[in-house]
């Protein structure tokens, strides 16, 4: 069974998490420096989230086909959930095609140091925003 009941819940949780990160200077400043538009394609449930770092601030939008992404990532929502817990071995996930990346790989790699603080933020974010039941540590 999928971790998230439907796309609305997924948008609330992951979209909300991205919006939190976009207001976290430690992460957002580096994302803005990268000047990328990243589109995450999730399945089970189906949803896309676009993280637009091409301007002066990070903008998050769901199911947005108006922006041309620099980089696209494809994965099940469950893998994304585990990833933000720091529980996905990225190299294994890429090798097993649990995650696929479309676009210039160096630009994707450049983001990894930027998102590092996010792993610690995610479980706390779930607890603080009424999503405790999704906290896999509970």
């Amino acid at each position, binding site marked *: 069974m999928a971790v998230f009941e439907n796309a609305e819940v997924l948008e609330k949780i992951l979209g909300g998490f991205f919006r939190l990160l976009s207001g976290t200077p430690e992460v957002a400043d580096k994302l803005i420096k990268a000047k990328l538009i990243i589109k995450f394609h999730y399945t089970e449930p189906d949803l896309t989230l676009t993280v637009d770092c091409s301007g002066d601030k990070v903008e998050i939008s769901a199911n947005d086909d108006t922006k041309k992404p620099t980089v*696209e990532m494809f994965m099940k929502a469950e893998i994304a959930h585990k990833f933000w817990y720091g529980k996905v*071995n*990225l*190299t*294994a996930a*890429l*090798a*097993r*095609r649990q*995650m*696929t*990346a*479309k*676009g*210039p*790989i*160096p*630009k*994707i*790699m*450049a983001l*990894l*140091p930027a998102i590092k603080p996010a792993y610690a933020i995610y479980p706390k974010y779930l607890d603080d925003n009424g999503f405790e039941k999704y906290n896999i540590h509970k």
Partner: protein
Amino acid sequence: MQLTDFFQFHAPTKIVYGPGLARDLEAELNDLKARRIFVITDNHVQQMDFYQETIDGINRTGAQVVGVFSDVPANSGLKTVKQGATLGSELEADSILAIGGGSVIDTAKGVNAEMSLAGDLMTDFCGTHTMPHPLNPLIVIPTTAGTGSEVTLVAVIMNEEEKTKMAFVDRYLVPNLAVLDPEVTLSMPPYLTASTGMDAMAHAVEAYLGVDASPYSDALALQAMVMIRDNIVKACQDGQNIEARGNMLVASNLAGVAFSHSMVGVGHGMAHSCGGLCGVPHGVANHILLPYAMRYNLNACEDRLGVLARLFFIKGTGLTGRELAEKAIDAVFELQRELARGAGMPVRLSQVGVKEKDLPEIATATLSDGTCIYNPREVVYEEVLQSLKEAF
């Protein structure tokens, strides 16, 4: 040994070895049902005796060489791939034969993708595992012993407009057949023998030290290192030594299978950046940077570097683990010096066109290189810059 949480081993390329084998591929071509073969090579290889003998041999089998694309430059790019794919499609080729070094082989992978898939290589398939189905048969005859690309799932192709090297990583890019014929490598001059051979050594060492190393990749990487250790100097000293040439070709192939699984690390990251920004040939950059990359990883890999020390005949008696690891790095420095004396190899970045002012930009580019996630230690700007300064 401590096993990682996950590893896999998938080496689908059929590998055949034999001196003179490139002239007689009937059995292998029949297996692949390759009938209309499009050859991709470069102008230099096309002038070699073995090249025409290979083409003649194919045409005697019932298969047919329908065309040849030889305009492949040293650092091939997307435009070259497009040109090759257009020609191959016009000729209605059903398979591709790449004869050459890394640039030719990677171009052939790109051409094969363009010809086999509906879509644009750059727009639709740049990245990791983006290709929806298998490609046409790809046969590779490597003419250098270093790249390993004849067995890897990676193609690195230059985006001329953005002046960046684009990485395509996909299981369907892996060639179907690798023909290892040491006779085709006999004419390589000592400098090229040394630089491509040290590229293979860097593949083996970094595959062994990387975070995704497994017992499978270890076995291949260690055997590759032994064969390179025993043969690289011999092959440089006597290019006609078929045994040394054969060993180097097989070692390069083993290292290729190893790093196709456990990838490479910061050494290759620095080498890619030196190549992209300053035009340093890939093998030369790896030759110079390998011991510095090993030193970068010393704190994370003492035990594994200790294994390499023994491989270089260093006895561990009375030495701490760290001292033994440092001896392994010294042994690679010594091999560098030997190749400098015997093959004229440079040992410093300052000898190959890199300027001191370039180092910060090279360090920045290294951090964005795809290899960094496979390095056993975090790749940090200040420390990469320090390594580059030491290698300068």
